[in-house]
């Protein structure tokens, strides 16, 4: 068996008797881009929330690099190297793009509680932050207030901020949602570029993005795994068509 970075075993989440995620067994291979797809309400985002512990797990186990991480705090998960994005762009709107990235670098360097130091000392992270902004095509935005940036740029900034932590595993929740075609293409290329040397798990609705990027696809339906495989296998599966389109007449 190939080297797996993340594994779930019978991962289950119940909300007052409603089972949102039902005994999901996922294995994410190291270095792959893995997609989680499925119709609305299939439980994709809930799986994300469970993996990053933004929601407590009802039953089952999560293992990262072979160590059980179930029950840890979300911030701990992040420090282990699993960093997520959100469906709604997760940026700090009242800070500049540079400061957004720097906040991530600060955490990594442990410059968190120093209330007696001048913030000017943070300029030592500027070079690295600019480098990351440049990587996602935002070098001209570094001084801009994030609230004033276009939507697609905010998503790119989110990726730069995540990359600042050099995560082993990136979880992207619908990275191209709400984007025009040009932005979708740019983001797809960006994800491809940053996937080098790391593992990505993404929730995505846009199937052309999935087919262009993903090595492996897991289809969820009503909280359970419907099928899994590469794009060709999954898209040929009649049950997947049925899940998306409803039963053929």
């Amino acid at each position, binding site marked *: 068996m190939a080297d797996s970075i993340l594994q779930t075993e019978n991962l289950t989440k119940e909300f007052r008797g409603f089972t949102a995620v039902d005994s999901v067994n996922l294995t994410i291979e190291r270095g792959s881009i893995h997609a989680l797809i499925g119709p609305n309400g299939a439980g994709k985002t809930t799986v994300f929330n469970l993996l990053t512990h933004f929601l407590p797990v009802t039953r089952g186990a999560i293992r990262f690099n072979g160590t059980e991480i179930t029950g840890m705090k979300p911030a701990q998960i992040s420090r282990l190297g699993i960093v997520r994005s959100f469906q709604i762009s997760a940026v700090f709107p009242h*800070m500049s793009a540079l400061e957004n990235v720097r906040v991530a670098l600060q955490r990594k360097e442990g410059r968190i509680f120093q209330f007696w130091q001048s913030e000017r000392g943070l300029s030592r992270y500027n070079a690295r932050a600019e480098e990351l902004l440049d990587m996602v095509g935002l070098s001209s935005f570094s001084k801009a207030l994030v609230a004033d940036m276009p939507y697609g740029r905010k998503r790119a900034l989110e990726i730069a901020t995540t990359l600042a932590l050099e995560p082993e595993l990136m979880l992207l929740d619908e990275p191209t949602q709400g984007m025009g075609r040009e932005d979708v293409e740019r983001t797809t290329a960006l994800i491809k570029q940053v996937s080098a040397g790391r593992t990505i798990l993404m929730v995505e609705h846009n199937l052309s993005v999935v087919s262009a990027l993903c090595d492996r696809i897991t289809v969820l339906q009503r909280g359970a795994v419907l099928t899994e495989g590469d794009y060709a296998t999954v898209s040929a599966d009649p049950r997947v068509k049925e899940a998306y389109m409803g039963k053929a007449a």
Partner: protein
Amino acid sequence: MTNRNILIVLALAALMVAPFVVYPIFLMKILCFALFAAAFNLILGYGGLLSFGHAAYFGGAAYICGHALKVWGLPTELGILVGGLAAGAFGAVVGLLAIRRQGIYFAMITLALAQMAFFFFISADFTGGENGLQGVPRGYALGLFDLSNNITLYYFVLAICLGGFLIVVRAVHSPFGQVLRALRDNEDRAISLGYDVERVKLLAFVLSATLSGIAGATKTVVFQLASLTDVNWHMSGEVVLMTLLGGVGTLLGPVLGAGVVVALQNTLASGPLSAWVPVIMGTIFVICVLAFRRGIVGEINALIKRSF
């Protein structure tokens, strides 16, 4: 930048000559409340948490400092420091209990614990109950300067309050201040970047409580009195009013707000409207919330931004 430096020099010069123009006790009262409001603003304006129990730190430190000076006979500076540290320690306990909650729940827990502190101070022996802790000696600054002289005391109080204010300014413009801003902007994202947001908030809360305590302890030295007014929940409300009126989340706003509120109270208390002070304060509060939410400094900043 040079314009700003000129303004700072002018302001410092004004503060130096002020006690020869205006009654020094009144000025010192404003200074103490200015530091209190600036410390409160650290947690409301920069931490995004509404504490409704800051009187406990202000008034608690007032009592403890008074006791330390009067009974233990500590030097004045040390008494004030003890008051501030005690307030910080109590702030840490309250913070640990309240920090996981948000919005109204956070406010209610801080209020409830502050009320417990109030009942402690009303019933404890050393506080003098309804009479307050009276006749606190002012002592000597650094063992040299006699603080019974109001002008000397003024410079002593000015140094403490300016020092406290500079700590607030530095904290806001520090690596920690950046983290606080990020947290206020998007808490979930801060968590997903690996920040332990509860610990960050707790530090802000303890800093705020400690500096509020320094303000309350200094006030005890000025008036030679710690009383129930200082720990009453009205005091918690007043500091909210000062901060909002002056401009929450701005550095100078709370200082200005404190000046306006204290000046109003003093003017009105001696005139024919003295019985109406709470009504007038309430009206100002309502107008402030309805018409200019950014407060005096916030509105001025917005105006400057619009016109350039």
